C-alpha cells in the first residue's frame, strides 16, 4: 500500500469516526429534547382566570381498584363548559404528578368540553391522553369512571358523558374500554360502589 493511500485511508477513518460521533450526539440531543418537552407538558396549569374554589375530584387508585374522593382548589372560569374543562384538567394533572396512584401518559389534556341539552357533556381529549394511556381493563375504566364521576359531582345536571380523542370518536381508550358510547354517571358509579 503506497503512502498516499495510507494517508487517504487514515483521513477517511477519521471522517467516519467523526460522523459516528456526530450521529450519536444528535441522537442523545433529540432524546433529551423530547424528555424536556414531555416534562414541560406534564405541568398542566388550570386557567388562571376566575375565582379559586374548592372542587371535589374522584381520583382513581390502581392498587385499590377504586376511586377516592379528594378536594382541591382550582381557579374556575364563569362559563359552565370552561369550568368543567378546568376541573377535568385538574384531575388529569393529579394523575400526571410523580407518585400518582393512577399514572397516565405525559401530556394528557382536555382540549374542550361541550355541553349539550343540559345533561350531556362531550369531553374532547388530546391524542396523548389515549395514545399514552396505560393499557388494561381496570386502568382504563378507572380513568373514565373518575372523569365522569368528577364531572357529575361538580355539576350534578351532567348525567351523560362521551369522550372523544382529538375531536374524533375512537373505538377504545387503550385497547379495552369502549369510547363509542355515552356513559351514564349512575352506571359508571358501579365501579365506585363495588370497589369501595
Amino acid at each position, binding site marked *: 500500500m503506497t503512502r*498516499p*493511500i495510507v494517508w487517504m485511508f487514515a483521513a477517511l477513518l477519521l471522517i467516519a469516526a467523526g460522523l459516528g460521533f456526530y450521529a450519536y450526539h444528535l441522537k442523545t440531543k433529540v432524546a433529551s429534547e423530547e424528555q424536556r418537552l414531555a416534562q414541560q407538558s406534564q405541568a398542566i396549569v388550570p386557567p388562571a382566570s376566575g375565582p379559586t374554589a374548592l372542587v371535589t375530584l374522584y381520583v382513581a387508585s390502581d392498587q385499590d381498584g377504586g376511586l377516592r374522593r379528594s378536594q382541591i382548589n382550582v381557579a374556575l372560569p364563569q362559563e359552565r363548559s370552561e369550568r368543567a374543562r378546568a376541573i377535568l384538567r385538574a384531575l388529569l394533572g393529579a394523575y400526571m404528578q410523580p407518585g400518582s396512584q393512577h399514572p397516565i401518559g405525559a401530556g394528557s389534556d382536555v382540549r374542550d368540553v361541550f355541553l349539550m341539552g343540559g345533561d350531556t357533556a362531550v369531553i374532547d381529549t388530546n391524542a396523548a391522553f389515549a395514545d399514552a394511556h396505560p393499557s*388494561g381493563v381496570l386502568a382504563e375504566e378507572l380513568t373514565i369512571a373518575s372523569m365522569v364521576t368528577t364531572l357529575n359531582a361538580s355539576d350534578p345536571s351532567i348525567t351523560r358523558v362521551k369522550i372523544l380523542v382529538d375531536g374524533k370518536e375512537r373505538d377504545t381508550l387503550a385497547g379495552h374500554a*369502549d369510547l363509542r358510547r355515552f*356513559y351514564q354517571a349512575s352506571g359508571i358509579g358501579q365501579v365506585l360502589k363495588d370497589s369501595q
Partner: protein
Amino acid sequence: MRWLRLRAAPFSATLLAIALLSGTARLLRHSTVQAQTPPATQLSVYSPQTFYTVPLLNLNGQPYVGLAELLEPLGGVEARPDGKKYKLKFTPSGAHEMEFQFQDGKDNGKVKGDKVKLPSIFAIQDGRGYVPLSSVSELLSRALSTQIRLSPSARRLFVGNVGERLTLDLRKGTPSKLFVSFDSPVNPTIATEPGHIRFTFRREPVMSPVDHESYADPLITGANFSEHDGIAELDITGTSPLMANFADGGKTIIVTGAPPPPPPTPVAQAPPPETTVPPATAQPPKAPSGPRFLVLIDPAHGGTEVGSAISPTLPEKDVVLTLARKVQRELQSRGIAAGLMRNADIAITLDQRAISANAARPALYVALHAANSGRGVHIFTSLLPAEMVSSRDFLPWETAQSPYLDLSGIVAGSVSSELEARKLPNATLAAPLRPMNNIATPAIAVEIASPTGNVDDIASPAYLDSVAQSIAAGIAAVRGKIPEVRP
C-alpha cells in the same frame, strides 16, 4: 508507471471511502433499529391433548420456532432470557420439571442436563428464544420421551402416537363409490369443482400411507394426498361432478357421482339427506345439531396488537394465550368442551371477535386480559343496563349482552368464590369492555394482575395454574344454571 500509480490511488481511495461510509452507516443503523424479519409461516402441532399452531420465523435463511410457544400447550413453561443466555423450565403434564439452556448465537445447549447440538445457532429476538425447526423433533423427543414425527416441508408436527390414517376403498358399481375411512370422526373443509372434490384437514392429524392412487373406473379416476403449510389435503378426481356423504358418525366419507341437476318441475321433491354436500360449493359438513355446553375462551390482543406491556419482554398477548390454554385444559379435564378464539399469535379485531363468538354459539364466553398495574384478579361483566329483552328477539349490536347480564353475573360470582377459596385477591366489577357488549351469550372477562405487586410474578406457572383452575371450577359449579345452546 508513476502516472498509473497516481491514477490508481484516488480510485482505490474512493472505493475505500464508499466501503467505510457504508459500513459506518450500517453500524449506526444497526445500533438504533433492530432488524425485523417477517414471519415465514406456521407449524401445525398435533398432540394427544390438543392441536395448535406456532408461528415460524425466517432466521439465517431457515425456519425457526419459538421454544416457549412450542412447549407451552404441552405443559408449564417458565422462560427467562438473561442477556445472551436463555433458560427455560418446562414441566410436561404429569412429569417432572426439566430445564433447557441455550445461548444466543451458539449451536450447542443442554436439555435435562444432557448436551445437545442444534443444526444451526440458537437465536434470541425480542426476549424470545428460537430454535431451528429441524431441531424440534430431537428436542421434543428428549423432553417428552415420546415419539415425535416432524414433516418440515409440510410444517406438521406429530407428538406421541397421534395420527389419523386414512384408508381408501373403491367399490365399483353404478355409480362407483370411494370409501375414505378414518379412525375417528373428521371435519374437513370441502371444495368441489368439475372433476374434483377436495378435502382440507386443518385440525385433524390426517396421514396417508400413499400419496397417489389411480383407479381404472369410469367415474372415480384417482386420489392424491398432499401436506403443505400445516394442512393435509385429499383430492379425489373423477370424470364428472363428485359429491361427498358422511357416514359412520363422521368416520367415513363416501365420494360418489353427484346427481344431475333436477329438471324444472312444479312437483315437490323430497329434500336430500342432511349429510349430502352439494357440488360446486365450498362448505364444511353439517355438525351435530343437539344442544351443547361450549365455553369459548378469548385470549385478548394478538399479532401486532400486543396489549399492555407486562414487562419489556412480556406482552399481555402472550400471558393471556398461556392462561387461555390452561383454562381450556382445566375445563376439558372437568368434562366441559372449550374452544379458543385464537391459539396462535394472530391479530383479530374486536368486531371480528364478537362476530366469531356469536357465530360459534357458545354457552359461555370468557375473555382473558392481563395488566401491569393493580393486584390480583378482576372479573368483569358488561357495564350495560339489564334490559327486559328476550334473548330470542333480534338484539341490538351495541347492547347484545343486556339480556344475559344476570347469567353473566352468576358465572362471575362463582369464579370469584373459587378464587377466594384459593386465597387469590379478587374483585367483581362491571366494565365498559369491548367486545363483551356485543356478545349474545353469558359473558365474563377476567383480567389478571400480579398476585404480589411484582409484575414479574404475573406469568409464574403456579399463579396461572391457580387462576385457570379457579375459572374452570367456577364455570363447572354453575354449569347447570347456564343453558346449553344448539349450534
